[in-house]
């Protein structure tokens, strides 16, 4: 096969991959910029430019509150899980103790839990604890997937750090807590940023618990708000508004992902695939 053909074929494949990945989101943006009956004409290129859907979603109703709720829940969840995970990961990666392997296996097993398996039990707990319809219920419930994951990745990361770095501190008689804070934490920023970001995305996107544990317009998080977004308008289903809301909640994620691209890839494959 001549070089040119091969090269063209290859680039065609590249273009296909990019289109495949980007087109639906591009089309969502396109739709969100349409208004009125323009919505019901199919266009491939931008022809309309109306911000009406954005102003409507941001000024009518409680969507801005929903965004704030999602931010609060995700940030608090990330902060708590990272705090608990750093110390736990230190113990799991640097200290030899009986039952360590079993504990790690248990953590792995918890990260595989189907959410539905704990839904009934969690619902009863949330109700009994009186936190139903508050953001606390979500912050608590989200630990089930963020905590095992953060512990896991940080354990992998810490395990790979050389022994020498803490030897000096141990000789100096520093307590394990001091060692974690003074010696490891400064080295761990990259790993913390990555795991934090991944945990943030997971909490931001969660749907089932959010659907079950909160009920008010003003306590809902973004995914539920979008799923329940209804037509208070006289048209039929408000696709324009739904797309505007979707773009609003997705753009920050995409920006974050693009900025931390390399870190995310290394986080996703942390330790793992290398074996």
């Amino acid at each position: 096969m001549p070089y040119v053909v091969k090269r063209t074929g290859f680039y065609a494949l590249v273009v296909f991959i990019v289109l495949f990945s980007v087109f639906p989101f591009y089309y969502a943006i396109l739709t969100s910029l349409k208004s009125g009956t323009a919505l019901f004409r199919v266009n491939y290129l931008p022809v309309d430019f109306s911000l009406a859907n954005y102003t409507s979603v941001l000024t009518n109703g409680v969507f801005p509150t929903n965004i704030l709720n999602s931010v609060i829940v995700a940030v608090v969840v990330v902060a708590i899980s990272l705090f608990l995970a750093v110390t736990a990961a230190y113990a799991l990666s640097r200290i030899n103790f009986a039952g360590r392997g079993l504990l790690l296996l248990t953590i792995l097993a918890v990260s595989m839990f189907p959410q539905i398996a704990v839904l009934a039990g969690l619902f009863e707990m949330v109700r009994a604890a009186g936190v139903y319809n508050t953001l606390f219920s979500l912050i608590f419930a989200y630990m089930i997937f963020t905590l095992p994951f953060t512990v896991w990745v940080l354990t992998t990361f810490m395990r790979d750090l050389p022994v020498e770095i803490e030897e000096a501190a141990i000789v100096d008689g520093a307590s394990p807590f001091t060692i974690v804070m003074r010696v490891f934490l400064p080295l761990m920023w990259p790993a913390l940023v990555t795991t934090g970001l991944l945990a943030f995305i997971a909490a931001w996107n969660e749907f089932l618990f959010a659907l079950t544990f909160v009920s008010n317009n003003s306590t809902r998080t973004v995914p539920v708000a979008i799923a329940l977004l209804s037509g208070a308008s006289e048209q039929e289903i408000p696709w324009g508004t739904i797309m505007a809301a979707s773009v609003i909640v997705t753009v920050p994620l995409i920006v974050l992902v693009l900025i931390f691209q390399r870190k995310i890839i290394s986080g996703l494959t942390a330790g793992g695939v290398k074996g």
Partner: protein
Amino acid sequence: MANVQAGVPPTEKALEAERAGARPRSDLSRQRLRSAWLFLAPMILVLTLVAGWPLVKTIWFSLTDASLSDLEGAKFVGLRNYYEYVDYGDGEGEYFGLLFDPQWWNAVWNTVYYSVISVTIETILGLAFALVLNAEFKGRSVVRAAVLIPWAIPTIVSAKMWAWMMNDQFGILNDMLMSIGILSSPVAWTADPDTAMWAVIIVDVWKTTPFMALLILAGLQMVPGDVYEAAKIDGIHPVKVFWKVTLPLIRPAILVAVIFRALDALRVFDLIYVLTPNNTQTKSMSVFAQENLFQFDKFAYGSAASTLLFLVIAFITLFYIKVARLDLGGRGK
């Protein structure tokens, strides 16, 4: 959630270290041991509260007659939610319970079908994407960034985006397929029972292929470059190199990715709930359980379905741990 996690347990090394035998303990190591448990306690407590106890409660509810309006009054009824014979009193009778419920088995079948098909497609496409991304070309980092976009989009948002694209009247998908002549009349993708499952699979493939590609790519990058150099000098055909050299080397990476995705696919809920609500052809095990828990007055029955789903996943997880150990632990480190 498993979307954002992957990897092989660090367990291996931990276990090895344990097998190597603990050295004599000094005061120092005793102090370290104490703080280890101190460090672990909060995490263990949280996980027990958020995972352990609720799981126990779910299993307990599955053995009772609990109803949503009266959880406290739940009474133990044994395995009746799983298996029961009801005598109609006129000489006829029937078996009831989850194990005899055709709708449960329909949900099981849907879930398995969905998981197998979507994971297979995602693996093949992901491998292709990874091979492309592994090649050197101009703008590679841009492409790599573009590939991350579907993965970053919340499932609910992608379900809505695709629901709009698949709209029977105004959707761009029908418009595209009709203008290139594949379709002659519009298809109601999410409503037609013949296409509803495929609509779900398409969205899932779109959203998850990038994740697969990145995991496989990481594996590809571990393959030393001189392997290819050597093959090139020997004049071996690239396709043969792929099958004989590359694939065996990245097999563990693919295996891990596949099992993670499969576990994720088996518990699918959001996508189906939003894209094809109340559709029998796409009802998954999680949707079945949620529906019984909260929409019908059958909290106990829904708990039983949740418990069975848990058992299925637990079984596969154990299998995974075994496979990962055999396959990855066996290679020299």
